[in-house]
Every structure is written in C-alpha cells, then in structure tokens.
C-alpha cells in the first residue's frame, strides 16, 4: 500500500481519502445532530400549532406547512388556567436556594478540608458521641421508618469510629472527602420513603424547605468533588498574603478566594442548578399541591393528556409549550457554564 502513495495517482488517492473522511465525519455528525435536536424542534413547533394542525398529521415547517399561533402559549402563561407559572416559580426558587446552599457549604467544606489538618482520634470520639446521641433519639421517636434510619446511622458511625487508629489511613482529610462522595453512591430511591416519613413527622411535607434541604444534601458531594480541583490545592499566594495582612479565614474565603475562582464556582453552581431543576424523584414524593416543581407537574400533565386522547388536541400544544419552558433554562445554564469554563481555560489562572 505504501509504495502507491509516492506516485502521482497515489497522492491524488490520499487527498481523496482525506476529503472522503471529512465528508463522512460531517455526514455522521449531521445525522446525529438531527437525531438529537429533532425532538426539541418538534416540541417547539408543536407548541405553535393550533388544534386542527396537531390532529391532522405531521406538519414540519411553520409558515410553510401551517400558520403558527400563540394560542397554546397564551393559555399556559395565564395563571388562571393552569399552574405553570407557579410551578416554574417553585422550580426556580428551590433550584436557586438549593444551589446557593450547596455551593456555599461545599465550598467551605473544600476550603476546610484542604487548608486544615484534622486529627483522627478526636473525630472518632466525636463520632461515637454522635452515634450515642442518635441512638437516644431513635428511642424517643415512634415512627418505624425513622427508627430504622437512626439505627442505620448509629451502626454506620460505630463502624467508622471502629476504623480509627492513631496511625493508618483512618478518617483524615482524604477520608472525609471520600466519605462525602460515598453518600452519593447510595441510590436516592432507597432513602425516599425514610425522608418522606421524617418530613411528615416534622410537618415539612409539601414545603419548599424540605426540597431545598434534600437537594442540598444530595448534591453536596457533587459540588465538593467538582470544587476540589478548583481551589482544593494548597493555599494560593494571595490567601497567604491575606493571612499575613490580618484577614480571618472567613474573610479570606469570601473576599479573596471566591472572587478569584468565581468563574469555575459559577460553572459548578450552574451544573448543580441543572441537577435540581431536573430532579424528579424527591419532588414527586415530597411535594404535592403548593410546592410542586416542574418535572413532576409536567409528568402529571402528560398522564392527564394521554387519558384524554382523542379529546382536545389543543392540550398537546400546551404540553409542548410547558416542555419548552422546562428545557430552555437548562440550555441557558449549560451555555453560560460553557462560557465561564472557556474563559477560565483561555485566560488560564488569574494573576
């Protein structure tokens, strides 16, 4: 094969191969783009259709196949008719609050775990104390689910405490970080019922607070692990200078460190927001009438519409509009996050 490449026809053949592979790449990518983007496009177009167009077979292009109408959009945005604005507000509020809490606690956690050293024996003792405290709580509580939860927590803490020795890898900073990640390995489905029972006991069902707290707890490991490469290395020169200048650690964290890594932290925050926004499981169980967020509500609408198949085709347009409502913020967040990350890579580390 190789000797052919040296000849004139061989050169032509090589050029042809290059062009062919480029064309092939673009064709494959183009097809995949269509596969990925077409559902979005279809939903967007459907939301602009009036009733007759929906029921009478596929119409693909607005202004060409059919005349778009804003009926569906006007309908869903009117708070009298449906509850979309309310759900959107809930999703936004819970998402923002949870993201803020997550990034704050996660950031402080990374700061503490990477700039201070934690001693093992001390922690072990504390954990045993905590286990004892929880065990006592378990006796007081009456709900079975809660008691099981407490027992499991006590067992876990005792196990961790038993793993402590004065030497060896027991719970030092790295161990704490790993423990934080490990909580994410647990499938959320497993803890939904216990959390439901807990919320019921505390009267927190169908409140925004319970969702905010749950999302914070489940996204905290992700935030921590995304933030470790951002500022998890040893203290920067600026932090040391600030220490010498007389700033406390909290001051350093908020006035020196965070502004310096704002872009990366914002990117992490946006990713966490997307996770909260799309979260379905806990929202479906823990919220009902007043605090339901978008994902379970849209699911609910879909079931309702399916039950009414053959009825008002207008509702498909309304559903499509709702779906667009759900998707657009996520796309915006991703675009923003990409811009932040790209700027960081472009400028490299700040001065």
């Amino acid at each position, binding site marked *: 094969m190789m000797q052919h490449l040296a000849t004139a026809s061989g050169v032509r053949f090589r050029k042809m191969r290059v062009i062919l592979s480029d064309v092939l790449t673009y064709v494959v990518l183009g097809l995949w783009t269509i596969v990925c983007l077409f559902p979005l496009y279809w939903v967007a177009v459907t939301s602009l259709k009036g009733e007759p167009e929906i029921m009478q077979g596929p119409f693909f292009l607005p202004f060409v196949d059919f005349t778009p109408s804003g009926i569906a959009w006007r309908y869903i945005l009117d708070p009298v008719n449906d509850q979309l604005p309310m759900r959107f507000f809930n999703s936004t509020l819970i998402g923002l609050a949870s993201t803020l809490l997550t990034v704050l606690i996660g950031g402080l956690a990374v700061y503490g775990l990477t700039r201070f050293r934690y001693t093992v024996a001390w922690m072990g003792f504390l954990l045993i104390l905590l286990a004892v405290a929880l065990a006592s709580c378990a006796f007081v509580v009456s709900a079975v689910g809660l008691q099981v939860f407490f027992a499991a927590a006590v067992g876990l803490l005792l196990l961790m405490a038993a793993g402590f020795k004065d030497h060896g890898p027991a719970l030092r900073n790295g161990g704490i970080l790993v423990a934080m990640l490990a909580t994410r390995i647990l499938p959320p489905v497993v803890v939904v019922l216990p959390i439901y029972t807990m919320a019921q006991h505390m009267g927190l069902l169908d409140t925004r607070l319970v969702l905010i707290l749950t999302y914070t707890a489940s996204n905290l490991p992700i935030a921590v692990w995304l933030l470790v490469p951002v500022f998890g290395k040893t203290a*920067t*020169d*600026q932090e*040391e*200078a*600030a*220490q*010498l*200048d*007389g*700033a*406390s650690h909290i*001051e350093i964290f908020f006035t*020196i460190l965070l*502004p*310096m890594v704002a872009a990366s932290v914002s990117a992490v925050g946006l990713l966490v927001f997307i996770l909260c926004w799309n979260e379905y499981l806990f929202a479906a169980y823990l919220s009902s009438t007043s605090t339901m967020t978008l994902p379970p509500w849209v699911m609910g609408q879909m079931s309702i519409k399916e039950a009414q198949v053959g009825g008002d085709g207008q509702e498909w347009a309304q559903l499509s509009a709702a779906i667009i409502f759900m998707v657009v913020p996520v796309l915006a967040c991703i675009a923003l996050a990409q811009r932040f990350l790209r700027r960081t890579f472009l400028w490299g580390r*700040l*001065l």
Partner: protein
Amino acid sequence: MANGKPGVQVSFDKIQKSFGAVRVLEELNLQVEPGEFLVLLGASGSGKTTALRILSGLETATAGRVLIGDRDVTSILPKYRDISMVFQSYALYPHKTVAENIGFPLKVRKIPLADREVAVRDAAAQVQLDQLLHRYPRELSGGQRQRVALARAIVRRPSVFLMDEPLSNLDAKLRGHMRAELKHMQQTLGITTIYVTHDQIEAMTLARRVAILERGVLQQLATPAEIYNNPANLFVAQFIGSPPMNVVRGALEGKTFLSNDAKVTVSVGGRIAKAVLGFRPEDCSVVATAKGAIRGEIYTTELIGDHTLVTLKAGSDMLTVKAAKDFTATPGEKAGVAFNSSHLYVFDESNGQRVR
C-alpha cells in the same frame, strides 16, 4: 528610624523543621538586630524559604521558638505577629484595584476610611505609584506590580518586613534599580528586614549581615565583607564570589601547602593530610613557571573587557586568574601562579572548615 518607631529584634531559637522524614532545617540559631537588613542566602533546598515562612507563621516549626521583640510568637497566628511579607509572585489580589490592594491590611483591621485613604496615598507615593491607584494588577507591568506589593507591605508600618526573593521575577536592569530603591526605603523606615535570596549579588549589596544556609545548616553569619574576605568554610568560600574561588587539593605540612603541582607558603600551620587551598582569582597573578608557587599550563584566555580571565590547568585542577586586559598567552604554554599569602585560605577537606 525616620518615623520614630524603633526596630525590633528577631530571634530564631533552636528552630528545627522536618517534613515527615526529611529534615529541612537543622537547629537554626539566629538573631537579627533591630533595624537590620539581614539576608538569608542559599541555593534551592537550603531551607531559607522555610525559615522565612516559619518566621511569618505560615509554617510551624517542628521544634524551637521564634521571638519578635521579646514576644514568643511561635504559636501565634501570622496576623498577630505584626509582620508583613512581600512574596516572590507578589500575591496581588487580581480583583481589587491597586488602592484596594494597598489598603487591604488596613481594611481588615477596621481602620476608618479617611485614615485608610491617607495611609494608602502615602505608601503609594513612597513607591511612586500615585498615578496608578485605580488600575488593576493585570494592567500593570512587572515592576509596577512589585511596587504595589511593597506598598502593601509598608502601609501598616509593621515591626518586621519579610521578603521572599521579590526581585527574581524582574529583568536585570529593573532589578538593579529596585535593589537601590529597596535599600534606600529600608534605611529610611528603619524596619527590621529579613530578605531571602539565592542571588549573591543581592546579598552582598543589600545586606548589613548575610546568613548563608546550606541544606538546613547555617554556614556563616557575618557582614558581606567578612563573608567575602574571611569565609568560615569551603562552601561559603566557593558560593560567594564570581568567578568562584579557586581550590587546589593537597596536604598541609607545617606552614606549607603541598600538592603535585603546588608548593605554597601559608600563614596557618598544622598537619592535615587532606587539605584544600583556596584563593580568589583577583588575588593572584600569572607568572613564569619558575616563579610560581603553582605550576601549570595555560588552558584558555577570555577577554572580559576591563580584565582578562586566564584559565590554567594544574594537574586535575582548573584555576582562574584575573589578569590585566592586555594579557596574552598561547594555550598549552607553561605558566605559574603567584600570590601574596595574606589572601590564601586553607580548609580541612574532611569537614570543610577553615584552618585558622
């Protein structure tokens, strides 16, 4: 002393530092006089930066005490030690303006805004930055950034200045200029300063006394002149001076240093089987083979401009001699080295110590 506040004494008392099994500082005992400019000089890994960081509080010593004034600050946080530090990378806050950078130490101490502005303007004027107070660090040149770091250090008038190779990121011309500025500023303010560097020229020009560190051990603490003319051991002798001191290996018998190619009368006596003779290139001259205390042959001659550097090969040793600028010789020509004995140094090779 111009601002009326007297300098404070700084002491390292038996400071040791180990990182796990690695011993970085071996029992450092050092006292810095009030208002003194002390330079910690050494190669990379000598422990000089570690010593500085222990003094600043950014590292804790494994053993020993640090005293500032008469306070034992060993277990005190950096911000309570009344020190300020200029970092090699300047450590400017990129999201704050020059004025905010300089004013930060005052802001965290809750100094009222009016006093803060006066102090900032005063500090900026001292380093000629008054026109740039509203700029951000990314808009400044290297020299300007370094002056911001300096202004930030002096705005608070601390008891001690610490400087960690602040000039090493500047180009040579600016470095010379800033050296003079630094020296003048320190003399005006009279604040005790500890300066870390690996550059012997900075050490010689800036310091009142130099502390040379090598592998965590203090080699010599003396004035630059003393270190140059009276080195305590072989390491110091070869570290200071450019071109470095010549060394010839041989033996010391009575008052004569003997080797295969050398027979030199020295001013110190003793019997040392493995001795090293040291002499500086400017303290010797190239003479005819018969007249020289060391015999060898010319290896190369290099015209520097105002003098010629002659390299001679004597046995396995290469010797450098500073000769007149019109000196000429052909490589391979036999020659000898002669010197006056007052600038000869004899070292014991087993421990590197100077024989006195």
